[in-house]
């Protein structure tokens, strides 16, 4: 477990009860593991390499690309980005991806959003070879998670679960409530946790009483996109709260980024809480790098299995 230093709260009585989970520190530890793994792969002749694809306005994805490139370079993963004109057809793009699938110098393919309206993101995600699916978005990647074959998973979901796993809690039998049942976050989190032996309840906008379920939980994940959705009175004292929301709000002091939890009231009740920013976010990008080395190793193993001639 890695925790942030106390935020200089002078009055002990007002000090939040919760330990604030330091996502940046967890990410740094993860990156160190990735760097070690990347070094081994390089020594075996398999330098991990990522290819980023963006379509149309390159500026829209630029902030993600820059951040990913920085993290890739710091962990020994090569990173290349390509931008295609907004007029490109879906068929041409699928062709590009098929080319990358066959290219031994590319181990992972990232599809940057936003895409132009005539390019459905799912069609591209499905075109990526499952062994190169570092974003964990191919249906087969999700299917593997459902079947407890923890290969490449969607980065945000995997990162959120990794944060919970870093706490001194036994996963088997842990009561967990997941608020939000989106395709790429809530649902994969539920299946990942189920595989770890937790008892999972999934709540969403049709749930009659989210509080009833969240109050029964040892850990709560929230990924809805509504600031202030989870308040302290919705938590069991001592519970872990993993806040995946990222919302821009206006305050008298200017715009701020907040999560889906009301941090102050939750911190008074929870045992552990992730801040926004600085919680799940940094771990997500580190998980992409982790997936890059995982994918590279899977491809190396696959290659060796397929092309090694058995000894007589």
């Amino acid at each position, binding site marked *: 477990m890695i925790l942030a230093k106390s935020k200089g709260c002078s009055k002990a009585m007002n000090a939040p009860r919760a330990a604030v989970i330091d996502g940046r520190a967890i990410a740094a530890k993860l990156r160190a593991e990735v760097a070690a793994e990347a070094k081994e792969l390089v020594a075996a002749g398999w330098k991990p390499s990522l290819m980023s694809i963006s379509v149309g306005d390159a500026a829209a994805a630029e902030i993600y690309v820059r951040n990913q490139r920085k993290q890739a370079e710091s962990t020994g993963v090569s990173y290349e980005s390509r931008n295609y004109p907004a007029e490109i057809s879906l068929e041409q793009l699928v062709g590009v991806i098929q080319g990358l699938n066959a290219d031994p110098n590319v181990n992972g393919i990232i599809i940057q959003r936003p895409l132009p309206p005539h390019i459905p993101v*799912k069609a591209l995600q499905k075109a990526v070879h499952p062994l190169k699916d570092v974003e964990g978005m*191919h*249906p*087969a*990647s*999700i*299917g*593997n*998670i*459902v*079947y407890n074959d923890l290969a490449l998973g969607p980065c945000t979901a995997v990162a959120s679960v990794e944060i919970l796993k870093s706490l001194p809690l036994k996963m*088997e*039998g842990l*009561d967990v409530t997941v608020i939000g*049942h989106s*395709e*790429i976050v809530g*649902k*994969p989190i*539920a*299946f990942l946790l*189920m595989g770890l*032996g*937790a*008892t*999972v*309840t*999934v*709540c*969403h906008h*049709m*749930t*009659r009483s989210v509080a009833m*379920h969240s109050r029964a939980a040892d850990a709560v994940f929230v990924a809805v996109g509504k600031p202030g959705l989870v308040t302290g009175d919705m938590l069991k004292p001592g519970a872990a709260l993993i806040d995946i929301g990222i919302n821009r709000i206006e305050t008298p002091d200017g715009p701020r980024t907040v999560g889906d939890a009301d941090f102050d009231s939750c911190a008074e009740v929870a045992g552990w809480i992730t801040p926004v920013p600085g919680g799940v976010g940094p771990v997500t990008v580190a998980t992409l790098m982790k997936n890059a080395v995982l994918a590279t190793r899977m491809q190396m193993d696959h290659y060796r299995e397929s092309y090694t001639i058995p000894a007589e």
Partner: protein
Amino acid sequence: MTAEIIDGKAFAAKVREKVAVHVARLKADHDIQPGLAVVLVGEDPASQVYVRSKGKMTTEVGMNSYEHKLDVGTSEADLLALITQLNNDPSVHGILVQLPLPDHLNEDLVINSIDPAKDVDGFHISNVGLLATGQKSMVPCTPLGCLMMLRNHHGSLSGLDAVVIGRSNIVGKPMAALLLGDSCTVTIAHSRTKDLPDVVRRADIVVAAVGRAEMVPGDWIKKGATVIDVGINRIDAPERGEGKTRLVGDVDFATASQVAGAITPVPGGVGPMTIACLLANTVTACSRANGLVEPEGLTV
């Protein structure tokens, strides 16, 4: 209070009737005859019985049934070649490989070589992922049957608290995904769950799929809840004479039926729905393959 008994046999017959109507319409309007190919490797007696009864029901609803019986020693390459041939055959809309396969054959590899669009068992890894994330897929037959019975009983399931007991790949997990798709608040409980009675007591819908005879007693069930019992367990029945056995579910029917609002019996509940849903999946796959509207009420 005594629960309404959900008659799976009668409901399955209705589903097959709907399938037959749709098959007739496909023939009349589009000159298309749906076809289901069943592949059986070896001579497992139980599998032979299943395959025979699947074939019979397939032809009864007016679809083509193609049976491929292969020798127990069939090589993986030969089996994969047959599947490729069926994948490419436009008159085959559904492919089912009867499990279990003999030990020398890799089940995952074989199942994942089926075209996902023809995977009427819903076991292809891509279908698993699509269903888990709420996208259009082929849905495993048993959980689909449970969902149909629940929809039929409740109308809308939206907002109901559902508990699935058991996290198996073929029932528990897809069932949870289907209930989420219908906007239930879903809890998946299993052998590691801390306070199972308490978790089950919160539920408006209980789906039991663990394979342990009568493990869920009536006092775990909330008054008026709907109970779907997927378990099929054979237990000793000395009251029927020496050496006799009988089938029971995962739920203690005698006590649960005093509390529940509705309950499926064992046998005669979920069981008969499975083959009916296999036929439903085949006609769904056929409609999709031809770019036609999916049959209403036969898929999610």
